[in-house]
């Protein structure tokens, strides 16, 4: 069982002092939720859990690392973020021990909540089913019908870089067409695209959760926070909201692992992954590059080659 293996490995790493702490997942106080858990004491590794609600990309914590050595629990997408961060030299090679988990795809708690009438008070994962209970209802739902959209299209569930793999590798076959959100967006007319984009961003409250939970957003000073020069105002005018979201997405070009953490974090239900997916698709088509697969090659926008395609210059 994956959970047992994570605990075993964590105990070993902490006891041998290979790492100072383990960052994994722990039980949340609400059904369908887990919370990142920091474990420093080998006797407390039983607080680590594994299930289909381990939705956070824990590699975002690597920016807080300092001098500590960390054992990090990573899914496929998280591991790819780690590779991308290591290319950007965000930590020393010996600081990190990756406990890789072949991912079963994560469950979208909001979709589950919408499927029932009333509040879910208990949830339990049982094989392919999620049993949920609330005031006056008790139903079993098919797990695969309630996955995050980023997980449905995932083709890298096995961690590309890991120091130990807990669990057997899984088959890499997406449940839905890869880049389906981006393709649907592309099919729209420019006017429809703009309307869709503006309708989504209009709900933005500038809490910057999409930025903070993203492992790839770590600038010492984000362009939205800079006052000299001032690139953007701090209010809610549509042009400022649009500007923020375009630049946030654009900065992910060739760096986004498609983990979907940004969209999950948004309290206003703003769709965000169609934008980053479009960039990921373009980078794949133009440069045959995918984030976090190869541990040596820099993302296309971080390098320059004489042979680079330049069809976009007209």
């Amino acid at each position: 069982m994956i959970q047992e293996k994570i605990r075993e490995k964590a105990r070993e790493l902490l006891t041998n002092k290979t790492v100072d702490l383990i960052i994994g997942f722990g039980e949340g106080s609400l059904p369908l939720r887990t919370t990142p858990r920091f474990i420093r004491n080998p006797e407390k590794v039983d607080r680590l859990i594994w299930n289909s609600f381990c939705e956070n990309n824990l590699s975002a914590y690597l920016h807080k690392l300092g001098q500590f050595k960390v054992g990090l629990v990573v899914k496929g997408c998280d591991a790819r973020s780690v590779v991308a961060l290591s290319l950007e030299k965000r930590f020393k090679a010996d600081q990190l021990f990756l406990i890789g988990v072949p991912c079963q795809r994560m469950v979208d708690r909001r979709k589950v909540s919408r499927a029932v009438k009333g509040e879910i008070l208990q949830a339990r994962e049982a094989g392919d089913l999620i049993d949920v209970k609330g005031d006056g209802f008790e139903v079993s739902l098919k797990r695969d019908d309630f996955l995050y959209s980023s997980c449905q299209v995932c083709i890298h569930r096995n961690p590309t870089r890991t120091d130990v793999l807990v669990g057997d590798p899984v088959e890499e076959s997406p449940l839905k067409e890869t880049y389906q959100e981006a393709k649907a967006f592309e099919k729209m007319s420019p006017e429809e695209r703009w309307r869709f984009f503006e309708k989504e961003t209009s709900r933005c409250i500038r809490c910057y959760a999409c930025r903070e939970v993203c492992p790839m957003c770590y600038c010492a000073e984000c362009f939205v926070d800079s006052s000299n020069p001032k690139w953007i105002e701090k209010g809610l005018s549509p042009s400022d909201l649009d500007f923020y979201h375009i630049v946030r997405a654009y900065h992910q070009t060739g760096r986004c692992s498609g983990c979907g953490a940004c969209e999950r974090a948004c309290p206003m239900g703003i769709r965000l992954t169609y934008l980053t997916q479009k960039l990921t698709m373009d980078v794949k088509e133009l440069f045959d590059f995918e984030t976090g697969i190869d541990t040596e090659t820099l993302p296309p926008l971080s390098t320059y080659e004489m042979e680079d395609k330049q069809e976009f210059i007209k």
Partner: protein
Amino acid sequence: MDEYDLFAPVQLAEGVSVFRKIDHPDEVDLSSANTQKPAKELFFPQSEVMFRYEKVGKRNQIVSLDEENRERILFGARPCDIEAISIIEKVFVSEEYTDVYFLDKRKKTTLMGLGCNHPISTCFCSSAGGDPFLRAGSDLFFIDLGEAYFVELLTEKGMAFHQNKFFKEADPRDLTLVKELEGKAFEKVGYTIPVDGIEKRLDLMGESLFWDRVHEICMGCRICTYLCPTCHCFDIVDEGGHQRGQRVRNWDSCLSPLYSLETSGHNPRPSCRERTRQRLMHKFNYFPKNFNQVACVGCGRCILYCPVHFDIRQAILWTSSKRPKGSERGVL
């Protein structure tokens, strides 16, 4: 009713609702216990123009101040949101200082509270000094009886609506039903989170290891502060240039590093540890010291929407455990 603008919860997207001006009754959505954004934004908008200026001849002149010109009704706000408005009011309207922007909106608004028949599991209003049917703060209080609303007219502003003959006399049996609904809701919310006495407990915890534990999972976004009905920090900025522009007041958040960054480059709250401490200390220690009340109404939004599922109830419980536990090792 034509003389009023009516504000009520509307759905912006699936599962996402906020308070907005209503043009048609069908827009009102009371299906969720609480909106995402609290009702505070009707009195203290997230982004508010304080005045506009323009260069006329050689001098800059203030060209407009946007005042509310119509009376407003806030309908469908839960008791926690209503209580929060009175908490914010303590800051914005006092003997020493009056915020005209807040006061203008507050004066022109009739508050129609709505009892919570179905509090959800993250609600802890009773522990925080309120309750699912708290009338205080409302001008009129609505209780959903299924077929009709049971309405209490609580203030002079509220009584004004009686004269319009909107309401018919309640049946004594309705009162029994109200008591029943109240009983059920009270039982569901319970009284389980030790908010009482937290101010004193925190007095002794300024440098506690407790803060190491509280902050470590926080990723530093602003959700818990922006969606909090009592958080009221703001940042005033000037937009525009020499010819014309405006002064704008935007919500700000103590969880942002920028919030406490000084011009010299020094930041007295350099890490997430100091910032999360500020958030909790302000709610449960500084605010009670100044106003005899915690700045938390137990609405549970910060629990529901935190991307890493930080549970403020857990933090409150930790403060009351005999030996507040910190991580075994200093900050990460």
